[in-house]
């Protein structure tokens, strides 16, 4: 039995090596460093954070947790960088679909994302968040 375990060792070592946690990127560190809060939520250039606005539920605190889960205003769900960290995908059971937002700016002081939201016509959305 010891012999078999010894023989299995190379595979187990490789397996263990593959399980190592990746070093996180600068954008990951910036995004997860703060609890963010909404600063401006614009749809076609106009505020859409008021009652009945299409971005109403994004109003408030936004948290990107290190495990890939998060809260986005009133939404609970998951987030992930995609497309070489140029885009940020936000998903929630309460959203009609995955929102793949384009990161315009990500600094310690500001997070700005844009996307096109489908309505009767396509709506240009721009959301800005600041550290809480």
């Amino acid at each position, binding site marked *: 039995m010891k012999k078999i375990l010894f023989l299995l060792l*190379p595979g187990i070592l490789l*397996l263990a090596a593959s399980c190592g946690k990746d070093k996180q990127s600068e954008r990951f560190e910036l995004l997860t460093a703060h609890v963010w809060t909404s600063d401006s939520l614009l749809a076609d250039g106009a505020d859409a954070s008021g009652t009945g606005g299409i971005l109403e539920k994004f109003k408030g605190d936004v948290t990107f947790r*290190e495990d890939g889960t998060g809260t986005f205003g009133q939404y609970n769900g998951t987030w992930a960088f995609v497309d070489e960290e140029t885009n940020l995908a936000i998903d929630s059971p309460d959203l009609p679909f995955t929102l*793949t937002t384009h990161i315009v700016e990500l600094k310690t002081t500001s997070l700005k994302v844009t996307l*096109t939201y489908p309505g009767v016509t396509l709506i240009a959305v721009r959301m800005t968040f600041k550290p809480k």
Partner: protein
Amino acid sequence: MTILRLVLFGWLLLLYVPGAGAQTVVSGQVTDSQGGEPLAGVYVIWGKASGTTTDTEGFYSFAGNPGKIPVEFRFIGYKSRTEIVNITAGETVVLNVELEPEAQFLDQVVVSADRMEQKRSDLTVSMDVIRSDYLYRTHITDAQELITKTPGIEVLDGQVSIRGGSGFSYGVGSRVLALIDGLPMMSPDAGGIKWNFLPLENLSQVEIIKGASSVLYGSSALNGIINFRTADASNIPVTSFFTEVGIYGNPPNIAWKWWDIPRLSGHASFSHLQKFGNTDLGLGVNLSSDMGYRKYNDESMGRVSVRIKHHSTRNQGLKYGINLSGGKSYKTDFVLWEDALTGGLKQDTSTVSRFHGYYFSADPFVSFGKRDKVRHDFRMRLQTSENRFPVRSANNAGSVSLYGEYQFWYSFSDHFSITTGFSETWSIITSDFFGDHRGLNLAGFAQAELRPVNRLKVTGGVRVEQNILDGEPDRLVPVFRTGLNYQAAEHTFLRASFGQGYRYPSIAEKHASTTLGSVRIFPNLLVQPESGWSSEAGVMQGFMIGRFRGEGDLSVFLSQNRDMIEYVFGPHNDPGSNTSGVGFKASNVEYSRIYGTELEFLLGRQIGKMTATVAGGYTYINPIEISAYTGKSKGLYLKYRRKHTARLSITAASDRLEAGIDMYARSEILDIDNVFLKIETRDLIMPGFYDYWLQHNRPYFLMDGNLSCRLNQSLKLSLAVRNITNTEYMGRPGDIQPHRNFSLRLSGKF
């Protein structure tokens, strides 16, 4: 009686064989060494190119020239045996032979696992082998159906998933690599499997590796490989054919029946294998037409293959030849159904398209080897394919690819050997759908096999590969694998393996831009390669208990993938047209972990003149999405996966009759894309689907049956009934699977 029969048979042979006066008759009977039963159909091969088979009573007879000749006896499930017969002129030789049963299939020779011939019991990875007799017994004419009925594998509308390794993306970007005789058989544009053009009419067996195989086979083998191995000519010329007619019954929901005239299908197949001196020839033709059970989903196709292999007499060990294959298919296909209530078998005409597919490949090869010491293999595949849409010409696409591979194997001793080589794939894609592109893939690989002590085999390998698309090199990817096999007892084999895998995004995932009905597909130029690893430990146990022979295989496995490319539904931007909209876009959104276990078994017994077998398998997987950042579970299941799949097959065969029952069970699909479930989108995409899903996403059970009767030595009549229980079940969303259907086949082998 036996002696009289032998003598009479011998005299008859003498009378009918020209010039037989100078020859001598060798005859005898072949029996089972344990039970003494005569064995019918045993191959008896003598000299260099002569052979016959035993009759229903196990008797054989042939006329040979005087001298010492080797006579070989081969039969599936028995150890081959060779006897040297000394023939003198005018003498009758009686050679009765007993064949010894061997543990079922442990000695079966496979080639895919390490790119070289070896016994199944020697493998370090899990491999399923589908033998051609299963294909013929069950009347399966569609390669997708053949593969999806294998334990632990599901094919969803062209997308293969081995042990939950893939979801569903309309066959695009397959994580399982299909091969014909070891050469890739994928579309260079969509990265999918060309299912229609797999040569089922001339198969010896299909070998499936369940787990990352990129070290051996490169990108696309992230989740495993399926190698369709064609049959070689033997000393005995073999011609086989079948012609078949099929009919669909009524669907379980009679309200869905939309046709007035019966929905029929027809298939015909021909294959011939023969040696001419030192040249092997193989021919195959297949024609089929299926009216289909769904409105706007019919198909007709034909394919032809020619295989020529020459064994050099000047240079011992030198073989060369060419395999040619081509075909056409005409199909009406769909993406989405019309409505769940008024007809899941009717399709949304806005997503229906007429499609013409063309395919041709030429595979020249040269192989030189000195037995058990060194071997050089140089092989190529020139492949052209074209998809034409008479109405939706914007989706037309064509491709030409040239794959080349050199492989060198060298054995330093009985304990140590290496395999190394390199490959290239060059491709040109012209398409209104994907755009025009040029691709180049270069790879080098090396692996070593070490047998440090008796009964132990250790393998290790590395591959470095680079993909260049339109002059833009992707990142250089090195991947590794290792494995071991230990023979713990005479019929007990332990194995463990670890292998890395990766896949470059297909051109379709990067560049496809189109609209199908209400569904828009967006390109994503930023999509990155996906990668992962799989590991496994298993035990294979062969056994012979009394007259029972069989094997069992138990494995546990764990795999993990990162940056998995999935089609994400939502609002996206098309950078080419600078327009936005709602639809699907390939994106690296998923990290996954899958663990599970698999049990497969095969049990056979000779009962008088009847052979009975029971075979089956059960696979359990737990497919979860994990955080890209912590590696912990997100509490979500991967989409389009099932936890449990099982299969049980029971067959009984005698001289004249053969019957089989195949049963399949699958648990429900764990999750699907939200676009089909969310109130905001579900009726826009597929009307009525949400309610149908709630009611019908359940475990299901299927049963197929078949019965065949041998009309004479060469001809057989068989009936197959698929989905006997007339179960209503679904593959990917909106894809209602075939209800009960019948096929009657006349086949021959001579």
